[in-house]
Every structure is written in C-alpha cells, then in structure tokens.
C-alpha cells in the first residue's frame, strides 16, 4: 500500500491554494486598515479645523470665546520648549552614545548602563512627569518654568537619541577610523574629525524624530503643572508657559462644540509642525545617503 495517495493530494491542492489566496487578501485588508484610519483621521481633523485656521488664529491668545481663541502662546511656547530640549538632549544623548560606542570597556558598569537605557525607553511618559515635578519643580525650585518642563522632556527623549546616535556611530566603517589612527591622530581627534562627521546624518535624523516626540507629548507636562490656559508669552526660561498639545488638550476637554473645531485647528498646526520636522529628517537622510 502506498503511504501517500497522489489523487488525494491533487484533489486537495485547489482548496489549499484558495485558502492561501483568501488569507493573503485578509492580510492585505489588515494592512489597509492602518492606511484607512490615517486617512479618516486626517480628513476629520482637516474638515473640522480648517474653518478656524486663519491669520487671527496665530495672532490671538487663548480665550473663553471660541471665535477669539488663538494658538499664539502655545505655538511660541512649543518653540521655547524645543530651545531647551534640543541642546540638553543632544549633548547628553550624543555624549552617552560616544562613551558607550568608543570608550566603554566591557564590564558590568557598561552593561548596567545599557540595560538601564533600554528600560528607561519603556517607562511611561507620565512617570517622567512625576520625576520632573519632584526634582525640577519642587527640589530645584524651578517652578512651572520653561526650564523645568524642558529638562523633564529632555530626559524623556534621551533614550531615543542615545539609541539613534549609537546606531549612527556604529555604522561608521572601521577602516575610516583605522585611516585616521594610521596618520597619528589621537582617539578624540578621530572621533571628532572622522566618526562624528560621518555619523551626523544618522544622529540628526534620530534627533529630529526624538524632538518631534517631545513636541507632541502632553502627559509629563500636565503632571509638571504647566498651565492649560495662558495669555502671555514667556520672557525667559524661568517663566511659565504652555505648549501646543496642552492647549489642544484644554480645548478638547471643553464641553462646547465650537471648541472642538478650535482644537482641530490647533491639531493642524501641531501636525504641520511635525510634518515639517520629519521632512527635514527625510531630506537629511536622502542627502547623506550612505556612501561607503
């Protein structure tokens, strides 16, 4: 007796192929789901908010009357926040990445630092807010200032920048370093003149992605106590302020229907800012496409 009945196999083949096609279709539909959601989301927000998006919207401060509410304080506040987060997080993040990739010996301290960074990346953002509230706002008495919020946010995005910078530094080919050492360059000269310039596109791309995370985050700032409603601009990093996502949160949670349109208009501004930043990242990535 034959172990395999050929007829049986042949008979079953069309069914198996059909199941294959059906599942392929299902997988494809699932993939389309993400696309669909994105389309609906953009469409909804655009149609709700476009009516409010005019010159006055950028000129006005927040207001109790929806028709007068504007995004000025929040937009400028977001830029202030970036002015703190960018230097702090890049300095700490790139410094850490250089240390880990170029100087760190293989010992328990190094593996502890690495484990720590990967766990830090998974800590909920609101917990960073509790840290910022305790350390920056209260212990260091920075109050609800741009500085307190900026430092909190820098710590939040630090793991993202570290990992991106580590990858960028690691991808600089070994033979470029060897060429530099071979000329009598010291380690730091090699890092500064060869490794970092070659890694800069990767670092910048990662940095911009991290900053766009910082610009869209709300939860830690809520906990730090940044006001939801403000009608003046900060004059220094020690002043209090608000940012776009906080302002949007404020408008979203108001019961009046009209404020939802104002919120949508605010979201358009926020998304436009994010798209702008991401386009810059893409341009950098393409311009400095890997050449080695």
């Amino acid at each position, binding site marked *: 007796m034959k172990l395999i009945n050929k007829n049986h196999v042949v008979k079953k083949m069309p069914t198996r192929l059909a199941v294959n096609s059906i599942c392929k279709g299902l997988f494809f539909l699932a993939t389309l789901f993400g696309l669909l959601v994105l389309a609906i989301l953009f469409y909804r927000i655009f149609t709700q908010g476009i009516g409010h998006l005019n010159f006055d919207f950028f000129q006005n401060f927040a207001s109790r009357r929806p028709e007068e509410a504007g995004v000025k304080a929040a937009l400028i506040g977001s830029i202030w926040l970036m002015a703190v987060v960018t230097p702090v997080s890049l300095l700490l993040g790139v410094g850490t990445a250089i240390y880990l990739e170029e100087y760190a010996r293989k010992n328990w301290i190094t593996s502890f630092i690495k484990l720590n960074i990967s766990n830090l990346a998974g800590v909920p953002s609101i917990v960073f807010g509790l840290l910022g509230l305790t350390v920056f706002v209260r212990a260091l008495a920075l109050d609800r200032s741009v500085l307190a919020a900026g430092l909190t946010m820098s710590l939040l995005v630090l793991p993202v920048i570290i990992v991106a910078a580590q990858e960028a530094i690691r991808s600089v*080919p070994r*033979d*470029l370093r*060897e*060429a530099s050492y071979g*000329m009598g*360059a*010291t380690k730091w000269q090699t890092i500064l003149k060869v490794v970092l310039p070659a890694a800069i596109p990767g670092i910048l791309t990662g940095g911009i992605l991290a900053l766009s995370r910082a610009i869209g985050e709300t939860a830690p700032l809520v906990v730090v106590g940044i006001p939801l409603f403000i009608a003046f601009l900060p004059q220094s990093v020690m002043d209090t302020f608000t940012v776009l996502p906080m302002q949007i949160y404020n408008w979203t949670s108001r019961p009046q229907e009209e404020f939802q349109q104002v919120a949508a208009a605010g979201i358009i501004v926020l998304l436009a800012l994010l798209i702008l930043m991401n386009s810059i990242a893409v341009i950098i990535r393409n311009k400095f496409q890997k050449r080695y």
Partner: protein
Amino acid sequence: MNMTLTGPKKAPTVGIENENADSVFLKETVYETSDLNLWYGENHALKNINLDMYQNEVTAIIGPSGCGKSTYIKTLNRMIELVPDVKTTGQIKYRNRNILDQSYKVEDLRTQVGMVFQKPNPFPKSIYENVIYGPKIHGIKNKKILDQIVEKSLKGAAIWDEVKDRLHENAYGLSGGQQQRLCIARCLAIEPDVILMDEPTSALDPISTLKIEELVQELKKDFSIIIVTHNMQQAARISDKTAFFLNGEVIEYSDTNTIFSNPNDKRTEDYITGRFG
C-alpha cells in the same frame, strides 16, 4: 614657485659609500625586530620573529593567507592595539627605540610611520580635505603651506594631473585605483619616514596595480617601504628584500633575488613555485 618643501629628513647613512660596489653600501637600519611573539587571546599568531629592515628599501612580506603578515605589519605601527586581547613579548626597535614600550606614544610613532590599507579608505570628504587631514590634526593650519603640501603629496602619489582640477570634489567620486593613490598621498602629506602597505593592490584592477607598483619604486628614493603582498610576482618586481612567513614564523629572509632564484628552505621553494598557498 620658489617656496619649496624639503624631503623627509634623512638620517645620515652609515658605512662606506662605494659607487661601484653596492653590496658594501651599508644602509641605516629602520626597524629591528627581535624575538617578537604575539597572541590573539590564546592564538599564538607570531612566533619568535627576528627581522631587520633598512632605509630606502622596499621590504616585501609574503606568505599564504593567515600566516600573520597583516598582524606583523600592524604591529610595526601598533595598529594591532585596536584589537582587544592582544599580547606581545619581545622588541621592535624603530630608529633604536623600542616601540612596544608603552611609554612610546603611538601618535608619535604613527606620525613617523604611515600606513596604506588593503581596501582604499579615503574619508567621505573632498580630495583636498583628505590630503590635509594629517597635517591639520598635527596643528598645521597655514593655508599656503597646506596648499603646497596638497600639491606636493598628490604629485608624489602620481595622481596630481588626474585630480588637480577637482580638488574640492568628494573623494568617493574617484575610481578604486585613484582612491588608493589618494590614500598614499594622504600618507605622504605628513612626510613619514616609513610607509607600511598591507596588500595595497589586492582590491585593484591590473592597470591600477601596475601604477601603484611603479609608484612604490619611485617612493623608495625618499621613504622606506614595507609591503605585504600575497602576489609573489609583485614582490619579485618591486622589492629589495623579501621575508617569507609561514604559520606565524619567518621561514626565510634575504635579498629578493636570492629568495626567488635560490631559496634556502624547502618550504620557501615550495611556496614560490606555487606548490601551496
């Protein structure tokens, strides 16, 4: 142009100069290796190496793959230290100072001893920036001097005519052979005393290879050159002395002519007649 660069400062030659008898002409020793052993972890990669190398000569190192050629040449400028877990014993004297002594600053050593690698490795910068990299990290900032160095080095590496009109273009636009000559120019820019070359032509086409071989012949007038090659014809064509390595040992070291025409050791003969390797 009346501003000129002198060649590298040559140490005075020792011995009797006799125009008619080359063999009596004694050359200054550049490198003196004695009882060198090297381990990668447990792997004993170099065993009791004893070799002397001389000024204004081309010394070739030949041998089958994995016999320790790269390891040895990288020890000569302590590039080997980039590999973790390497241990050495013995001495390598460069101009009478033991370079394996940790008080010898590697940066000083590598300023005197340049290196050209197997794969061309220009920096992703302009041709000009590539050449001035060495002088700049050593503190030379005067633009006029740098311009002169660039011209002199590129001429020295026989690539000036090909690139003089595009000095500020990216070096990655050059062909492989041109890139390798640019790397040689980059090396010449700090006027080293010795140039180490680890299979500099193995990634190149035959015509580029020929150009580099001619260049090496030219360069030996001003520099001492130590070149690793797995191409025996190349060693025969361009070198004055040849060392044959096998399994981390020097089997035979003498004048290139002797090695190729009248080897002492059976294993050398087997290798150069192509019986293994």
